[in-house]
C-alpha cells in the first residue's frame, strides 16, 4: 500500500486587550438638553480566543491507474471565547469647560452624570465553549499523461458534531456535505 500519512494541527490562543482609555459621550437628550460630558473608562475592550484543530490525511497512490485517493479527518477539539469585562464606571469625566473630575458613587444618582455609568449584561463576559466536532473529507484524483488532472471530492461526507448545551440552551450543529470537482491542466 502506497499510503502517506500526514498529521498536522494547530493550537491558537489570542489575548487582546486595550490599554488606551475609552471615551464615551451619551447621545440622549435629557431635560430638553444634550448631555455634554465625556466619561473616560479604562480597559474598555479585550478578549480571549482559544482553539485546537488537528487534521489526519491518508493519501493512497495507485500507480497502475495513476490515481490518488485521499481521506482527511478534521477535528476541532474545542473553541473557547470570552470577552473581558468592560469597565462600567468611568474613572473620570470631562465637563463642557474641559475640566476633569473624578467620578464618584454619588454621581451615579445625578440626573446627568448617571448616564456615564453604563452597566452591561453580565452574560456578555462569560466563557463560551464549543466542544469537539469532526468531519471526514474524501478526494479522488486521476492523472492523464501528466497533463490533465481531474479530481472529485466530497467534503464533510461523514461528520460527528454532538449536541451540546450552553447555559441552558441546547445547540444542534448541522453540517452540509459539499461536493466539488477540480480540473487542472499542465502546459
Amino acid at each position, binding site marked *: 500500500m502506497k499510503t502517506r500519512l500526514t498529521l498536522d494541527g494547530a493550537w491558537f490562543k489570542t489575548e487582546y486587550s486595550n490599554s488606551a482609555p475609552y471615551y464615551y459621550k451619551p447621545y440622549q*437628550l435629557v*431635560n430638553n438638553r*444634550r448631555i455634554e460630558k465625556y466619561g473616560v473608562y479604562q480597559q474598555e475592550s479585550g478578549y480571549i480566543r482559544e482553539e485546537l484543530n488537528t487534521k489526519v490525511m491518508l493519501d493512497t497512490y495507485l500507480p497502475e491507474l495513476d490515481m490518488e485517493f485521499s481521506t482527511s479527518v478534521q477535528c476541532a477539539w474545542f473553541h473557547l471565547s470570552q470577552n473581558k469585562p468592560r469597565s462600567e464606571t468611568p474613572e473620570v469625566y470631562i465637563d463642557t469647560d474641559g475640566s476633569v473630575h473624578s467620578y464618584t458613587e454619588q454621581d451615579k444618582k445625578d*440626573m446627568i452624570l448617571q448616564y456615564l455609568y453604563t452597566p452591561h449584561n453580565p452574560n456578555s463576559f462569560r466563557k463560551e465553549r464549543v466542544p469537539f466536532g469532526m468531519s471526514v473529507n474524501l478526494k479522488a484524483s486521476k492523472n492523464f499523461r501528466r497533463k490533465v488532472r481531474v479530481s472529485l471530492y466530497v467534503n464533510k461526507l461523514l461528520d460527528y458534531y454532538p449536541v451540546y448545551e450552553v447555559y441552558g*440552551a441546547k445547540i444542534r450543529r448541522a453540517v452540509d456535505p459539499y461536493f466539488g470537482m477540480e480540473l487542472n491542466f499542465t502546459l
Partner: protein
Amino acid sequence: MTKKYLFLFLMMMVSIGFNACQDDNDELRTTILSLTVQSPEEMTDFTLSELQAVFTERNTGEKTLSDPFTGTLMILLPEGTYDIAVQGKISYWINGKRQTGEVKASKESNVVLGEKAVLSLPLMLVIDHTDFLISEIFFTGTQTPEKKQYNGDKYMVIYNNSDEVLYADGLVIGQTDFLTVTKHAYRPDIMAEAVGVDCLIQIPGTGKEYPVDPGKYLVIADNAIDHREYNPQSIDLNKADFEWYSTSLGGEVDNTDVPNMFNLYDRMVMHNRGFKSFILARIPVENEQYLKDYRYHYDYDFVFNGITYPMDGDCYKVPNEWVVDAVNLSVESEFQWIVTSPALDMGWTSCGKVDKDPQRYGKSVRRKVLATNPDGTQKLQDTNNSSVDFIPDATPSLMENK
C-alpha cells in the same frame, strides 16, 4: 311668547291664590306628565336602569322625586314650571364585554299644564373616571407622488373625553422602547408595574395654561408646517397646537407660532411601521426628580440560530398608575406581544397588514365614537382594548378636513 308668559303669570297668581286660601277641600290642579328619555346617538345594544327624575318647581322650589323607571315615566305633578334632571345607569356591550356608565339629562323651565303633558329629553352619556385619551395616532407618514417616503407630517391627537375642562399642562407622550414584534425575556421584568419608553415629550405649561373643553382636542405634530408645499399628498399641520422640535435634528423647521413640546427624555421619532406603542401620562413628581430616579436598565439574551447574544438597553419607566392612556400598535404578520400591562391596554391596532406595507402610508388609527351627546360633543370608546376601541387603517382626521 308674551301671551304664554302672561298666561303663566296668571296661572301662578291663581296658584298663589289657591295656596293663600287653602283649606281641607282645596283642589290642587295636577297634570299627568309622560316623560320619555332618548338614548344617546350611536348606541344600540344597551340597558338603562335606576333612572330617576327630579322635578324642581321654579316658583316654590319644591322638589318631587320620581320612582325609578326605564324608558318612559308617568308622574302626577302639580301644574307649574319645572326644572327637570334625570340621572341613571347604563350598561352597554362592546365586543362581548359589559361596560357601565351613567346617563344624565336635564332641561330647565318646562311648563307642565293641563290634564296631560308630554316631554322628551335626550340622555347624555357620562363615563366614569374619564380623562384625556389618545384619540388618533398618525404614525405612518405619507408618500410623495414619486412613491418616496415623506416624514415630518406625523401627529397625535389628545382628546378630552370627560365632562369637565381638563388642563393639558405637563402631560407626557411616550413611545415604548420594546417592540410588539420581538418578544424577549427582559430582566428585570417591570411590565406589570410600568411601561418602558424610549422618549418622553411633554406639553409645557405651569398647570392652567392649556385648558381643553370636554369633547375638544389637541393636535401634537412632528413639524407644524404646511407639508403640502413639499408633498402634495401630505397635510397642513400649521394649526397644530404643539410640535415636537429638536435643534439637534438637522433640517427641522421650527414654527415659532406653535409652542414646542419639551423633550423631557430624548427625541420623538415615531416608528413608521407601527412596531412601537404609545402612552399618555402625567408625571406627579418634578421633572428633575423623575429623570434622576426612573431610569430603566435591562438586559436580555437574544437567541438566534442556536447562538445566544447577550444584550442590554436603557430607557425610562413610567409607572402604570401614572398612565392616562395607552395604545399598542403592531402589524398582523409580525405581532408577538403587547408591550404594556394588559390593565392599560389588552389589544393592539394597526395600519397595514404586513411589515413595510406600502398601503399603510397616509393612514392612521382612530378611536371609535361611542356616543354623540345632545350638545354635539362626542364620547369616545375606551375599554382599554385597542383592538376594539380603534379603527385601523383609518383616514387621518386632518386629511378629511383638507
